[in-house]
């Protein structure tokens, strides 16, 4: 067997699998979105139906808020952990990256344990402190799985920063705040944009967490799920899926052009 034939054979299983289980299903999904009486106008219909528009807006706003919060928290913690060595640092780092392997359903359960009817806050504080099933719960759940992903990106970026720039700024008399604003943050900026985009895309597509919390807030994946299973509105479920997939894919593509990394979507 010649080298060329062998290399071609190596690619064959991948090509067959990808065609059967990725390319063709995606084509079918796009096609299915046009199979209601509205045809391709279904995409216009999404923008004209208040319920879908509101869902889109909700999803974007929650995802945006989560990304910004995760960026702020993870940048503070990430810079701190990357710059300091102290006993217990390794343990802290393990705790902060632990949720990477948690499926969205487990994250939802964690929030129920904190803020559900039998949750920690409701037990500690007199009165009814139940926030798990509200917008707050959804926000905290998304934050829970976003923090580890953003933190790892930030820490990798901090390791690559040039410490002599900070040294120089300090010798020139810059205050710690000025150093953060003028030296550290600009150095981290590309990674922060990328990490933010990853967090945003993951939150947009998160299904398991919203599903477990069974919130009364409509987010896009939940609406897709109910359109498909309860209303049997297959065309609309497909159209919304195509829209969601396009948005998350384009975002991550843009993020990668900044740094060249992607972290698995999940939640």
């Amino acid at each position, binding site marked *: *067997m010649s*080298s060329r*034939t*062998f*290399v071609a054979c*190596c*690619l064959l*299983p*991948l090509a067959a*699998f*990808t065609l059967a*289980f*990725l*390319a*063709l*299903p995606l084509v*079918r*999904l796009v096609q*299915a979105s046009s199979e209601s009486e509205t045809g391709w106008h279904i995409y216009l219909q999404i923008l004209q139906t208040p319920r879908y528009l509101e869902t889109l807006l909700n999803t974007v706003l929650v995802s945006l808020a989560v990304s910004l919060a995760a960026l702020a*928290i993870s940048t*503070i*913690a990430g810079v*701190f*952990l990357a710059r300091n060595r102290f006993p217990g640092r390794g343990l802290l780092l*393990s705790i*902060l*990256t*632990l*949720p990477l*392997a948690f*499926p*969205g*359903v*487990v994250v*939802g*359960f*964690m929030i*129920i*344990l*904190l803020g559900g009817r039998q949750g*920690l806050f409701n037990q500690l504080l007199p009165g009814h402190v139940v926030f798990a099933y509200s917008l707050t719960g959804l926000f905290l759940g998304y934050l*829970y799985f976003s*923090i*580890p992903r953003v933190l790892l990106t930030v820490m990798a970026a901090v390791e690559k920063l040039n410490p002599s720039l900070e040294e120089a700024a300090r010798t020139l008399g810059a205050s710690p705040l000025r150093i953060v604003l003028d030296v550290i943050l600009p150095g981290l900026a590309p990674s922060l944009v990328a990490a933010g985009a990853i967090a945003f*895309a993951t939150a947009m*597509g*998160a*299904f*398991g967490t919203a*599903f*477990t919390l069974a919130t009364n807030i409509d987010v896009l994946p939940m609406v897709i799920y109910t359109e498909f299973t309860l209303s049997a509105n297959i065309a609309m*479920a*497909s159209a919304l*899926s195509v829209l*969601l*997939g396009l948005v*998350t*894919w384009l975002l991550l593509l843009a993020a990668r052009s900044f740094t060249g990394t*992607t972290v698995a979507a*999940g939640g």
Partner: protein
Amino acid sequence: MRRAPTWWLQLAVTLLTAAFLIVPAIQSILAGLTVNYFQGLSSGLTLKWIGRVWDLYSDSIFLSLWLAVTCLAVTLVIGVPAAYALARNPGRLSRMLEEFISLPLAVPGLALALALLQLYGTMSGFRTSWTFILAGHVLYTLPFMVRSVLAVLMAMDFRSLEESAATLGASAPTRFRTIIVPSALPGILAGSLTVVTLSIGEFNLTWMLHTPYLKTLPVGLADSYASMRLEVASAYTLVFFVMIVPLLMAMQWATARAQRIAR
């Protein structure tokens, strides 16, 4: 040394964040082991709930393990040769192919599941078998295997090794078996651990693809969160932690090692 106030502030944010992540996990471990969570630890410790989980959900645990192992086998067979082929022909076409197979990382699992359901949903033999869930898991984990192996291969000079072997008369399949696979082992190991970890924890695709007779561990978890008492749900989550946390740590270790080698 006196610390600046900002140092303490940073420490506080870091500790609070860690508490936010770890406190509910500890709660769930405790709740899974206490007789009555509502009364607290004073009601005593028990393994009763773990036993209940075993009675109710051991099938789902075995199904998840079986899926993870078969998923690993399939991603190895498809992914390792493919990574080699991509490394042999680094060009625009290879990059586009890599980009395309990585779509499942970007497109939400729910959307992929809907796509699979609409193409194969009517093939009832396939739709109701465990291989349908397997297809979804392979779809989601394959890019991790390919990228992990590809990164290690791209960082080393496997071409000159191959050329020397070829001059000595080794055929292309022999070279793949005796040179490429051994050299790519760190990448294969990291990829394998990632595949197994992700497969055991996969929910978004599996929830749509599963049937009432085929529940995986995370699907069972969702079921217990919705319908079981808190202690059983917690004990089940504890079982999941015991499986996934060592895997996650091994995965992080292997990935860091592969990245060191690839650099």
